[in-house]
């Protein structure tokens, strides 16, 4: 069968070209969006601790249960749950490698978790230092043991990202403020290790809500246009 080898190689090549190479050619030409009015650039290439947190995210296997993609309103309840202000598009991920889209949602989506007020701070602007500090503390406790904040959660506890150590002199500023049932023995405190700080820094940096020409963000939730209140 003399067409065999050329045939199977051609079939595969066509698939590879069409699925990977040609889209790569197109998708690699994406530029960040520059807002003509505000001179804001979106997205920005996250660097430093947030980028290292990405590696902790991958190494901890968070992608096994969490996705980072917000679907359009007719595809699911993502926008209703305010997992994002709009659906995510290719430009949102342009600096990430690999992209952590995920394929299974045992837990909520994390695409814009940095913009979600999980700690119930009530602050309108989550970018203030106070709000960020409260959010970070919420994430630390949640990572240490999710069942402290949600008793029925089946998310694993990430205790190895934290250190239980003796209080020497003053308690550490970073020590977790745990309820008595979960607190360490007296004289000890739970302090996040660098990996935990990186991971939380990464989580708080996740925000894909900026409006883009190909996907315009809806008005903020306080506005009557967005519809009723929704659970997170």
């Amino acid at each position, binding site marked *: 069968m003399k067409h065999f080898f050329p045939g199977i190689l051609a079939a595969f090549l066509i698939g590879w070209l069409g699925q990977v190479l040609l889209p790569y050619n197109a998708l690699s030409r994406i530029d960040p969006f520059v807002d003509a009015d505000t001179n804001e650039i979106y997205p920005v290439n996250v660097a430093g601790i947030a980028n290292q947190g990405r590696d902790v995210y991958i190494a901890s296997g968070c992608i096994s249960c969490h996705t980072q993609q917000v679907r359009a309103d*007719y595809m699911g309840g993502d926008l209703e749950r305010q997992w994002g202000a709009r*659906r995510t598009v290719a430009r949102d991920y342009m600096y990430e490698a690999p992209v952590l889209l995920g394929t299974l949602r045992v837990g909520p989506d994390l695409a814009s978790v940095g913009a979600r007020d999980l700690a119930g701070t009530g602050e309108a602007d989550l970018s203030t230092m106070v709000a960020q500090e409260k959010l970070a503390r919420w994430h630390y406790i949640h990572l240490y043991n999710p069942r402290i904040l949600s008793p029925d959660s089946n998310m694993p506890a990430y205790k190895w990202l934290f250190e239980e150590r003796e209080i020497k002199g003053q308690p550490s500023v970073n020590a977790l403020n745990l309820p008595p049932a979960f607190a360490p023995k007296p004289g000890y405190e739970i302090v996040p290790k660098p990996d935990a700080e990186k991971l939380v820094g990464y989580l708080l940096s996740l925000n894909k809500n900026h409006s883009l020409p190909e996907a315009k963000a809806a*008005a903020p939730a306080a*506005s009557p246009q967005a519809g009723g209140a929704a659970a997170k």
Partner: protein
Amino acid sequence: MSEHKIPEFLIPQKYPKHEMEGRMDYDEAGNVASLHGAIAREKSEPAYEGQNKRLPNWLTVFFCVLLFWSGGYLFLFGGGFRNDVFSERETVATMYFPRSSAPAGAAPETEKTPFELGKSLFTGTCQACHQASGQGVPGQYPPLVGSEFVVGGERRLVSIVLKGLQGPLTIHGQSYNGQMPGWESSLNDKKVAAILTYVRNEWGNKASEISPEGVAALRAELASRTESWTESDIRAIPEKAPLPGGKESAPAPAAAPH
């Protein structure tokens, strides 16, 4: 093909002949029962598939229908084969999936009010000198809080922003000697109007909004002027002078929430 030099280690070689004669070297060649058992229990190899039966007709018809469906689906939901279309219902398909409200992703846009826009632009443009508190730096950059130039006439204020201000300046009895550059080449009318609307209504200031049209008109009027103002120049402009085409300063509007 059996004369090539690829080592037998890697690829099986085809032995030319006498495959069967005396070369069977079973580890228990004496175990006739096992050998016969192996042969007796083996079924014959199947013949080559020589038949050429085709598909049942109904299946062929089904496949043709499927191909037709595929073409239609590709056309409807292919997003025009564009790389910036992510929701398949956004192009051709909207004919068949009409949206009761605005389409996904094209929800009412977050249009910032001039005040909000001005606030975010202020941070990148003016804050370095006039400070986030609007208090300026003593001796160098005048404050914007309660400044007669800021809450006073629109023409003076926009003139300063467009052309800049140099030389000593006295405000509230204090003297300042910074060099304010002109911003007419780096800020468009909308941005100038937004920043000034913000500045005129922040830190306790209360004054009217600045309109982009007014800024545009003043920019055209002052087009020929190349040097920046000095204090005496700017004080020569009447205090309550409006922008071209505008009235005298109107009462302050309701400030946007912040």
